[in-house]
């Protein structure tokens, strides 16, 4: 194991986050705070409780998950795309480092950043609503597992993209709609039966539901199903990345 290389990539990426603290940390915290102001305080105060949880508190796990997914993807995608764009990828490809070590460095840094943002949002949320985390270890497990899984997805997007437009396309056109339709702001039990079944094809439902369960003990789908789906997605991403390095797709001629 080339630990020096993993550390070099990890800290290089982390220092980039600190250079762009406005974009990396302040921006997601600000936008989430606005969600709390609008949905939690202004609209939420006029809405009924959901499964015994105030609306403001109900949306906290979903909002954290929304930022966790988008931040994980964009951090990891940009992390690997930037050296491809500038041409500095030559150094990574010529270094004595295995694909696994490259992934640990980039995905580890991306996941660390998004977990940090998630925890900051959690702290921010506690200023607006009363939070009660019933299963803190499950909450942390979902946080880490989701951050790693979607950072892996971001890494794939960063290798697949051949321009900044494509880099933004999946997070904007796929992940954000799936997150909004994945029970971030509502319980899927509030939907008509047909749409409840359709929604079950949305992988984000399982993430939000499992994460919400760790806060309030309530969930739209079984917690085991949530955990299982997250693991399946993690394995799919790992499989795709393994294939990318085996074939040199978009990396090596």
């Amino acid at each position: 194991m080339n630990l020096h290389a993993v550390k070099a990539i990890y800290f290089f990426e982390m220092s980039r986050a600190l250079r762009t603290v406005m974009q990396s940390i302040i921006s997601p915290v600000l936008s989430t705070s606005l969600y709390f102001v609008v949905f939690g305080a202004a609209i939420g105060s006029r809405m009924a409780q959901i499964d015994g949880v105030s609306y403001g508190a109900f949306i906290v796990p979903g909002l954290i998950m929304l930022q966790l997914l988008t931040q994980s993807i964009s951090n990891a995608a940009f992390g690997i795309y930037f050296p491809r764009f500038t041409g500095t990828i030559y150094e990574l490809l010529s270094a004595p480092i295995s694909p696994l070590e490259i992934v640990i460095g980039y995905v580890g840094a991306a996941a660390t950043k998004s977990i940090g943002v998630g925890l900051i949002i959690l702290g921010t949320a506690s200023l607006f609503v009363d939070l009660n985390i019933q299963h803190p270890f499950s909450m942390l497990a979902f946080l880490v597992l989701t951050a790693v899984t979607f950072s892996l997805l971001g890494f794939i997007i960063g290798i697949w993209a051949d321009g900044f437009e494509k880099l933004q396309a999946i997070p904007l056109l796929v992940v954000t709609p799936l997150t909004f339709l994945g029970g971030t702001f509502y319980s899927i039990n509030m939907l008509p039966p047909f749409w409840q079944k359709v929604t079950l094809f949305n992988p984000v439902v399982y993430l939000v539901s499992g994460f919400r369960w760790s806060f309030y003990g309530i969930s739209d789908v079984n917690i085991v199903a949530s955990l299982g789906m997250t693991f399946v997605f993690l394995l799919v991403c790992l499989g795709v990345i393994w294939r990318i390095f085996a074939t040199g797709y978009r990396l090596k001629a």
Partner: protein
Amino acid sequence: MSDIISIRDLSKTYSGGFQALKHINLDIRRGEIFALLGPNGAGKTTLISIVCGIVNPTTGSVTIDGGDIIRDYRRVRAMIGLVPQELTTDAFETVWGAVSFSRGLFGKPPNPAYIEKILKALSLWEKKDNRIMTLSGGMKRRLLIAKALSHEPIILFLDEPTAGVDVELRQDMWQVVRDLRATGVTIILTTHYIEEAEEMADRVGVITGGELIVVEEKAELMRKLGKKQLILRLSEPLSAIPAALARHELELAGDGQSLTFTYDTHAGRTGITSLLEDMRSAGVGFADLDTTQSSLEDIFVDLVRSKR
């Protein structure tokens, strides 16, 4: 001198069908400066990229210090430093950060004293805290060399190291390369500045159309393929070469003021004596004479043209 790099039957065909390398066989000796010459698109960068692990070969093998570049990639790559042709840098990073990153990437623990030594040797120490985007082109080129040297490689690839670099900086870089060689580093440089190879290389390889057409000691190459010319400034201009001199390989200048005689320096008889005797007999006098020898550039151009 033992070989440190052995390339055997190496070919590369890109997915579009373009064959960039055709059955290359090449040995690089430990501690030498080897210049790989070739016109644009000859396959120089592809060859270097394969050895460094950036491009996958189609067929053939490369071993470095006995290790295969694919099976034994960790040990092999740790020995190599690469200075790419393009000025590819992370514009927002500092000089110090970029060089330290490279050292870590190649598996070496932090060593600020060594990084300081490199930056000072490359006249970058004053800029260590500057962002790369603020550096001039020449400084960026030196930064790439610093990055390539950060992990103390024993083989250094320089892909067009002085492209776009001014004359003074070029001289400085040549000195850096010579200093490195003095410490035992094997250096492979690609260039299309022939004077660069002529100035520094121990051996020269010429590649064109993906084929390695010559590999030779520089001095030997110039001796074997070089031509020498004797230029005679005439006392009186000639309108044509006199019949008495027709048996000599002569060329009359357009103004009729000089005759150029091309001869083989390695032949037992150069023909100079008989030429001068024939000129005296024909009454052709000369006021001055000069000799010239073909440069590596002349040889290179002849070789590449003959292959087309």
